[in-house]
């Protein structure tokens, strides 16, 4: 039977993130599947995939931040990895050098990274488009330079022995415990990101992205909104970096390079810039691709050295970005929505 169109009778209902009972069911199902996943992996002896999942969750948090700065507010940022780096180093310095507890250092590190984002946003007030991108790129190199040259960050050696957190007396030490902690953070970040899109500020971001002059004429304070976009984006990046540092217990300069900034942008574009769900999809797609390539390289099925696998990953990511931007500029999420619409209208869809 063909489905009727959805009729929404009141505004609150229309704005709700989870609109219908069916939607609630889907969300509950997805969450319980995600919660069961590590146990399935343990049962099938695939625990190394858990590490992959953890890094994917961390990357999702970081790229959600980039999606706010670049995808929603349209401020091209090539320096997002710098915020992740700043968050990681801040957590490292506070816990290792100053002896703060993890849960005290985490919010401060996140906030510091946000303030860094705010500072980067200041030159962006006078600039547009590419110039903003180059400013963020310059900022990336400056942060790297500062971290390398000051004493407290350990220079080129980085910081080691970053402590793991405790939750209610439980040490978050094993991959499986980290998975649940990161899952909680990730879901919270996704919620925050979706909520932002339906707030006044989120609509202001979209307006600035689409037409800065028109947005200003509608009474949006463009400068303030841009600063907020950078601030919020950097908060997400900093949170990801701080969690990352604690998860791998070291923070080093070569953990977050300019390539990471590029991959973050690529993940966002492949998933669908400006869409939270799209961003998550894009991160999963690219991370899966790289993991599969890595597995092929290390399994010895095809004689490839690990270096060759890495270069192949570069080339394939590049091709993926080019193909998506040329033929599917709205990303995976638009493909999914089209598929869904066609399914609903079948046999009348295109």
């Amino acid at each position, binding site marked *: 039977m063909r489905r009727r169109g959805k009729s929404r009778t009141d505004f609150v209902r229309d704005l709700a993130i989870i609109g219908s009972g069916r939607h609630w069911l889907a969300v509950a199902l997805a969450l319980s599947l995600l919660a069961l996943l590590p146990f399935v992996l343990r049962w099938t002896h695939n625990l190394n995939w858990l590490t992959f999942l953890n890094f994917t969750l961390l990357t999702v948090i970081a790229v959600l931040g980039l999606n706010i700065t670049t995808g929603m507010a349209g401020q091209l940022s090539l320096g997002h990895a710098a915020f992740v780096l700043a968050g990681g180093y801040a957590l490292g310095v506070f816990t290792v050098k100053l002896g703060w507890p993890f849960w005290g250092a985490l919010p401060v590190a996140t906030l510091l990274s946000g303030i860094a984002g705010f500072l980067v946003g200041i030159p962006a007030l006078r600039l547009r488009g*590419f110039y903003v991108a*180059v400013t963020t790129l*310059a900022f990336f190199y400056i942060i790297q330079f500062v971290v390398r040259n000051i004493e407290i960050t350990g220079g080129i050696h980085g910081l080691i022995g970053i402590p793991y957190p405790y939750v209610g007396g439980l040490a978050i030490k094993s991959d499986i415990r980290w998975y649940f902690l990161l899952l909680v953070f990730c879901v919270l970040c996704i919620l925050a990101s979706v909520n932002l899109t339906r707030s006044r500020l989120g609509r202001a971001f979209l307006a600035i992205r689409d037409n800065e002059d028109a947005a200003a004429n509608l009474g949006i304070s463009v400068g303030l909104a841009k600063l907020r976009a950078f601030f919020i984006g950097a908060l997400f990046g900093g949170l990801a970096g701080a969690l990352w540092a604690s998860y791998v217990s070291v923070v080093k300069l070569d953990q977050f390079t300019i390539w990471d900034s*590029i991959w973050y942008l690529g993940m966002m574009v492949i998933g669908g810039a400006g869409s939270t769900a799209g961003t998550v999809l894009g991160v999963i797609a690219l991370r899966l691709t790289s993991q599969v390539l890595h597995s092929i390289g290390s399994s010895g099925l095809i004689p490839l050295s690990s270096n060759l696998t890495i*270069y192949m990953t570069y080339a394939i990511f*590049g091709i993926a970005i*080019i193909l998506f931007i040329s033929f599917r500029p709205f990303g995976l999420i638009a493909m999914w929505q089209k598929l869904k619409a066609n399914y609903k209208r079948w046999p009348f869809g295109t």
Partner: protein
Amino acid sequence: MPQINTIVQLIISGVLVGGIYSLIAMGFVITYRSARVFNLAYGQFAVLGAFLAWTFIGPPGSPRLPLPLAVFLIIVSAVGLGLLVEFLFFRRMIGRPLFASFMLSLGLLALLHGTIMLVWGPESRVLGATVPKGPLFLGKFVLAREYLWSFGLALVATLGFVYLFRRTRIGLAMRAAYDNQVAARCLGVSARLNSQIAWVICILVATIGGVLIATVNGVSIGLSELVLLVLAVVLVGGLDSLVGCVLGGLILAIGSNFTSYYLSQYLVGVESIVSVSLMLLVLLIRPDGLMGIKMIKRV
């Protein structure tokens, strides 16, 4: 006074290196001024040119092909690559938002990086004879011959491009398309031809610049770091000004010469940061660069 001698020496070598930077920056400006593409893959094209040159010319002492033939092949492959890149990637970008071409160039950056590493590998190589090498003594000062030759070639190429842009019909068409793509097309300027010419010139210049830099520094993937420097040169000079390129190149080369001579023993990596901070400073004070055309904003 040795101090004065050092300063003059630093300025002279800064001018020579600055000439090469200016030439490379010019290739970047040309695609921006005609096709409005902010080509972040530019450094990778220069590296590709250097590796192609190494393939044709070979390591020092054992030339693979006679030099004129090698030069001819390098030029032909650069032109071919320019046409190919335009046809495959950037033709679709005419009329698309800036973000699209920006992301496309990032994708191209990754693709070229991966391909170069797959084909040639990460180890650096020494490029065989393209121009005479060795020191040249001028009174108290020492000049490297290869710098001098590179500077001369860069100067000739720069003048050629300035002439092309300022005095010929092709240059006029390209400037018109930069001002207003739609109006230019209405007046009979072919957008496709424009974009083809721009890409051929861009990659040709990238190749020449890459080979010149490789003559001095050797061929390696690390040359792509120069894209940042080129960006800095371009932005200091002004994104749409050829003369600004020359000015920016000289300022940055002399500046980084001085800082690396006087400061690099105290701070690691200061010479790479000086160009970046100079660029930020210029952007903050004059967002259009020193010589850039001031954009008039109408609301």
